């Protein structure tokens, strides 16, 4: 509809492919290819093997995957609860106070994750709350980082929600709590699951703050991937990365299933 001449169209598409393939498709394919190889210094990888995968689904690696999954699940659920609560509370407040809350809850995005990690390390290595050396410090940091995204996407959804539903419910005699539980939350459900998926994916791949705080017995998968590549095991690292991506995608797929169901109702 924008370009009508056939030649121009093809030229535009060619340029698109030339930019898109090497920049976006190639990296993922390369990681996938490398995870099945032992050697790669020409156009194609060589030395096909699945050994990296058997290593990546056992022992330390399996534990790291579980660690990542538990951390991401906990962080995204807490972040979703806190973020939704804050967004709902903010929506009921006058514009000025709401602006302030918006800024406050978006701040963790603007602050570098490494600094969030450092701050939490500094704060919880000393009384009154001692979390350093426990898994809770990792979960706390992840939660802080993803709450901002949960808050933002839920507030955007609340703004889009037609107030007529709420008012219809109130006119039928429903108290605010009942309206929230029976009308607002069900209507927000698709956005809530989308926000949960986003938080989960972010937490699964979180490296910056984690590097600052993880205790030896709570090593998430990204840290393990870094350790592998740092000691030169790029191929083993790729297999771990593929495991990380697959796990993330599987969970996101499950979440989007829930979402389609929720939005169909």
């Amino acid at each position, binding site marked *: 509809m924008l370009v009508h001449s056939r030649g121009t169209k093809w030229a535009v598409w060619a340029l698109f492919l030339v930019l898109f393939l090497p920049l976006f498709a190639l990296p993922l394919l390369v990681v996938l290819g490398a995870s099945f190889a032992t050697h790669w210094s020409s156009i194609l990888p060589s030395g096909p093997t699945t050994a990296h995968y058997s290593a990546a689904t056992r022992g330390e690696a399996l534990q790291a995957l579980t660690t990542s999954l538990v951390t991401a699940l906990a962080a995204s659920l807490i972040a979703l609860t806190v973020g939704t609560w804050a967004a709902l509370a903010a929506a009921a407040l006058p514009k000025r106070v709401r602006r302030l809350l918006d800024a406050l809850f978006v701040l963790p995005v603007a602050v570098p994750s490494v600094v969030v990690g450092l701050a939490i390390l500094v704060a919880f290595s000393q009384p009154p709350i001692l979390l350093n050396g426990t898994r809770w410090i990792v979960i706390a940091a992840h939660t802080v980082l993803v709450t901002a995204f949960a808050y933002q996407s839920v507030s955007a959804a609340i703004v889009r929600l037609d107030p007529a539903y709420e008012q219809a419910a*109130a006119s039928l005699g429903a108290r605010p709590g009942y309206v929230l539980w029976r009308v607002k939350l069900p209507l927000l459900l698709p956005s809530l699951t989308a926000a949960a998926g986003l938080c989960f994916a972010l937490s699964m791949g979180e490296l910056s703050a984690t590097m600052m705080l993880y205790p030896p017995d709570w090593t998430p998968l990204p840290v393990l991937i870094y350790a592998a590549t740092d000691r030169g095991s790029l191929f083993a690292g790729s297999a771990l990365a593929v495991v990380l991506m697959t796990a993330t995608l599987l969970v996101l797929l499950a979440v989007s299933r829930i979402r389609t169901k929720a939005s169909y109702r």
Partner: protein
Amino acid sequence: MGIRFDAVTVAYDGNVVLDSLDLAVQAGEVMALLGPSGSGKTTALRAVAGFVRPSAGRVFLGERDVTDLPPYRRGIGMVVQQYALFPHLRVEDNVAFGLKARKVAKTEIRARVAEALEMTGMAAYARRHPRELSGGQQQRVAVARALAIRPDVLLLDEPLSALDARLRSDMLAELARLHRELPDVSILYVTHDQVEALTLADRIAVMDKARLQACGTPRELYRAPANAFTASFVGNANLLPVTVGADGVAFAGAELKVDTAGAARGSKATLCVRPHLVGLGDGPNRLQGTVSEIQWRGSTHRLYVDVDGHRVMADVPELRTPPAHGDEVTLHFAPRDASLLTAGITHG
């Protein structure tokens, strides 16, 4: 239970959207709030529902002052233009919503949902979701949902404006039937459509510019409008600027015989004549002019006639040989078909 507005004023940031409204709806009465958009009619309805807080004045339901009550404590049924059916609930759960919120017993809920759906002819659709229904069906469910809580007061906010013309007249008949079946329910009906108001209402409150302009039965407002705005908004009207004489008025150099009771001799006034009461040809109260426009409307012809610079409309039964553009014609009307407006001399 009646509704009473006692000097209700609503203002946002100093912008008055409803100016000191005094109005009483009797128990079992259908009151239409008729006016153009921005006239304050919806604000008045929302003040009754509790979604708008008056900056001054009180709202009463029966003897109870509800001004400070939250919406969910008012017990009012409400239907809005876009229906606002809960998309995630089935029809039956939409209708049961208010009953569940009030913790009515389960068996009772089932009976009352069935009754409300029966009354609106939607019993066969109980298991559907709102998006599987047509606009008219959604409308009926919205009415059923409002009626299920057995309100004493029903608020209808432009309930038919999202429907097409045919469906609208069907639903209008349907609402009239519902009101006959529920004679004790007071209905406040907000609309900008005079046909809806004339058809359904026991009384009409005409609103404009945040103020109540007139209130009366449809017949009163139509036959003897209190001011020019009411005359032009309730039905069509020719509004002619006249000077009051001894036993008639002067208009465009002609003497017209009309009832001038209450008007001071020599004063300026507005004469209101409905177009369908204007006839073509000679008779009492003649007006002469040239045809500026002629429209064929099936069973009638609408003539626009220029009488000394003033446009006069006449709706006459379909003519075999209608006059042509530019023809000289004579119009007439009976003295009792005209009413003299002495207040609000604005021609528009």
